[in-house]
């Protein structure tokens, strides 16, 4: 039973435009959400997080939005750069529990 879902396996965006990666979750008890970025042959790298008490968190070109009523999380990258091309994983956790990950979205930013 997958509690975190990323329904788009891939996304292609032109350099300079906005990339929007989406994530849905089923467990309303999740209170902390994260995005990880993964390059081939490397481990996931932490990108940005958001607590359930917030609906937006911004860090440079990266913004994460949380819609608790819809159980939906999104990552906006603007402007997108070719170096952003990677697989992006959404993750969620509850209290001191384990992380639950989505299956990832492969982002390709075209020059």
């Amino acid at each position, binding site marked *: 039973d997958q509690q975190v879902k990323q329904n788009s396996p891939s996304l292609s965006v032109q350099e300079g435009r906005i990339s929007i990666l989406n994530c849905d979750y089923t467990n309303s008890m999740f209170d902390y959400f994260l995005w990880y970025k993964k390059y081939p042959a490397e481990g996931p790298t932490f990108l940005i997080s958001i607590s359930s008490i917030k609906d937006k968190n911004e860090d440079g070109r990266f913004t994460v939005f949380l819609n608790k009523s819809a159980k939906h999380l999104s990552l906006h990258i603007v402007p997108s750069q070719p170096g952003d091309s990677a697989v992006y994983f959404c993750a969620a956790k509850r*209290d001191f529990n384990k992380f639950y990950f989505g*299956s990832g979205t492969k982002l390709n930013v075209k020059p």
Partner: protein
Amino acid sequence: EAGVTQFPSHSVIEKGQTVTLRCDPISGHDNLYWYRRVMGKEIKFLLHFVKESKQDESGMPNNRFLAERTGGTYSTLKVQPAELEDSGVYFCASSRQTNTEAFFGQGTRLTVV
């Protein structure tokens, strides 16, 4: 500060053999996690150590998998005997506290043939 390191980076073994994966967490991180990604699917939780104690091992697939963290430092994950479906990338992660992000190692790609 060194990151999370895993050894080996790749392992190819025959079905029925034994393999031991090692993870060295970031120094000072009490929390250590093992995760696995199979066939491009989601990264799935295996277990969580707090220091040397197993906090949660609900994700361990079966008793062919044994994880240890003697002394609360590095951890090993042994698969014995390995089966074909055990193939995948095994990630280790560590965190200082449980309510923060975890830092991942580069993973060990295990192929069972």
